[in-house]
């Protein structure tokens, strides 16, 4: 039976070509769109986690309320004790402290007077600690444009865009003018040893990256940090797992009314990411359903046309004794085979294009140049195991449903009229 149907599909191309093309086009588009949305969502989450939110983030309650202002006077104190406690309670995670700060970078001329100055957005992370994973989190090796990464105290990195604007480069000594956590003026000399391009517009405009211990010293923040970012060791964010960690951490401190006590927040509850996370799943399945519906309509129509074209063939088969049910099932099986072949070809084509977008990406730097979102300027698709099979659902279901609906006409044929219809 299967062999008979396959021969029919292959030999009578006018019967199979149109439905096959529809399935191939629909499935390949579903596959590419799934990979693209998956990639963009993954990039938003990864960039946000690595640069801003962690998988979870700990701040003081007061700091959390004003976190967009970098209120370091409300920073976490007793950092070492807190980190020890976290390592004990959550061994499957690692935590990394950061200080975000604003300031003015002032470059002197030969006489020590101000030559050029500009506002900077500062981020202090553990750069000199050999156990630190910040280098990977911030992708520093790839982001480095000029010079090298800091190896000694008092060495900083500057965004390439800022360095060009100020006409400085590696080797320049500049003074960072800012405020200590107590509000005093902080003026500290640093040596620029390298420039970075993160590929994130919000940072590339004017970021300064310094070692945590240097900034703790400069801003009077010994054993303190504005934020403590937590990451799952497998680098994979899971909503439920993060929520469980947050609940466990905050529950142990629920009795405390200290406004400067630590509070943990999940990535999901920061920067409006909850909407993005919820939306990503819905969008992917929404796309699959839209394509399923569109292909169903087209294939239903194709099935009706096919039934008209194959009117004679169906009549002969009924006339020689094939039951209507057998004929209907044979046509359904035929459509299923067609759907599977079309889905396989469509998935192959879609995956080829999706892998291309995963490797090459699409540069949206011009669109994002004024954006404050921490998102990469090169957006890439991301092929996941689901990408391999997501096209088969609309591909096979649409052909099946299309034929099932169009094939109902078989049951309307009157056997007594067949010979008249066939003019035998």
């Amino acid at each position: 039976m299967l062999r008979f149907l396959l021969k029919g599909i292959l030999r009578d191309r006018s019967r199979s070509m149109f439905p096959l093309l529809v399935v191939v086009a629909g499935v390949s588009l579903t596959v590419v769109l799934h990979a693209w949305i998956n990639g963009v969502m993954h990039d938003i989450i990864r960039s946000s986690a690595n640069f801003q939110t962690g998988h979870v983030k700990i701040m003081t309650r007061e700091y959390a309320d004003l976190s967009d202002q970098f209120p370091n006077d409300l920073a976490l104190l007793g950092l070492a004790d807190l980190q020890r406690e976290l390592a004990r309670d959550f061994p499957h995670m690692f935590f990394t402290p950061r200080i975000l700060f604003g300031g003015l970078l002032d470059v002197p001329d030969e006489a020590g007077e101000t030559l050029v100055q500009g506002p900077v957005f500062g981020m202090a992370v553990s750069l000199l600690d050999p156990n630190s994973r910040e280098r990977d989190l911030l992708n520093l090796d790839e982001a480095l444009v000029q010079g090298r990464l800091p190896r000694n105290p008092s060495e900083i990195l500057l965004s390439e865009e800022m360095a060009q604007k100020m006409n400085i480069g590696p080797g320049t000594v500049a003074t960072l003018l800012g405020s200590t956590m107590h509000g005093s003026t902080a003026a500290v000399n640093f040596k620029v040893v390298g420039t970075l391009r993160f590929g994130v517009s919000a940072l590339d405009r004017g970021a300064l990256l310094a070692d945590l211990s240097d900034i703790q010293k400069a801003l009077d923040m010994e054993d303190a940090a504005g934020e403590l970012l937590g990451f799952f060791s497998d680098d994979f964010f899971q909503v439920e797992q993060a929520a469980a960690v947050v609940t466990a951490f905050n529950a142990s401190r629920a009795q405390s009314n200290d406004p400067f006590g630590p509070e943990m927040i999940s990535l999901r509850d920061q920067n409006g990411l909850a909407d993005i996370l919820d939306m990503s799943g819905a969008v992917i399945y929404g796309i699959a359903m839209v394509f399923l519906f569109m292909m169903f309509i087209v294939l239903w129509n194709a099935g009706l046309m096919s039934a008209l074209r194959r009117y004679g063939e169906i009549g002969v088969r009924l006339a020689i004794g094939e039951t209507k049910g057998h004929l209907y099932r044979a046509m359904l099986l035929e459509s299923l085979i067609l759907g599977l072949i079309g889905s396989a070809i469509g998935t192959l084509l879609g995956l080829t294009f999706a892998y291309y977008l995963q490797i090459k990406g699409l540069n949206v730097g011009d669109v994002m140049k004024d954006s404050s979102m921490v998102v990469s300027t090169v957006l890439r698709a991301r092929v996941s195991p689901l990408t391999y099979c997501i096209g088969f659902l609309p591909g096979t279901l649409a052909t099946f449903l299309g034929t099932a609906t169009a094939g109902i006409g078989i049951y309307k044929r009157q056997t007594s009229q067949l010979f008249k219809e066939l003019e035998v």
Partner: protein
Amino acid sequence: MIMFIVLLCQAGLPVGDGPDAEEILTRIDKNFHAENRVFTSRMIVHGRRASRTIVSKSWISGEDQSFSEYLSPPREKGIKMLKLADRLWTYSPSSDRVIRISGHLLRQSVMGSDLSYEDMMETDELAVNYTAEVTGEEKVGDRLCWVLTLNARKADLAYHQRTIRVDKERYIPLLEERFAKSGKLLKTTEIKEVMRVGQRWVPKHMVFRDVLKKGKGTEFILDEIAYDVAIPEHLFSKASLRK
């Protein structure tokens, strides 16, 4: 109709008996103005976690030249500031650098206080910068005051409008509200205590409050002040910042 005529007659006239608004401003300026003055003060900055007291000594010549040196606490000791007309420099011993404060940094807080560098840069001459109108009378504590509404004569002033309550007898503004162009209240200043120095009334204890900040404000206490003393001219130079 009678009411309308009464209101028309009142328009543009000072409320009650006494000097008009411009004269009040001139007398405030006259009370504050001096050829030069040297003072030592304490600034108590009430932070959200703790308070700090910063002691400084300042030398001021006319309206355009001032030099300040911070004496304590240790973190601030040795920091100096120089103002020459509309330019401001700061010297920090930790970096051994003289840095010009300009642009957006002028709006930043000085030492974490409720005062900005821009506030420090302002000249004291209200009559030059603002037009005034007497809009009422009010008691501040037990002192009877004129209520004056000041509007900026120039577009580049930090505050577009001010409302001040001026002591009728001493010609010192006891309460002040400073507004942005949008009408939003930005800062308040309250003089808690005044002292007599020669013929002048001088604020002894003031509280500045940046209303955009969640804080208890910054107290300013004047410990010593001397008027018309000799100040060497070389003090008002960038070279003196490093000395």
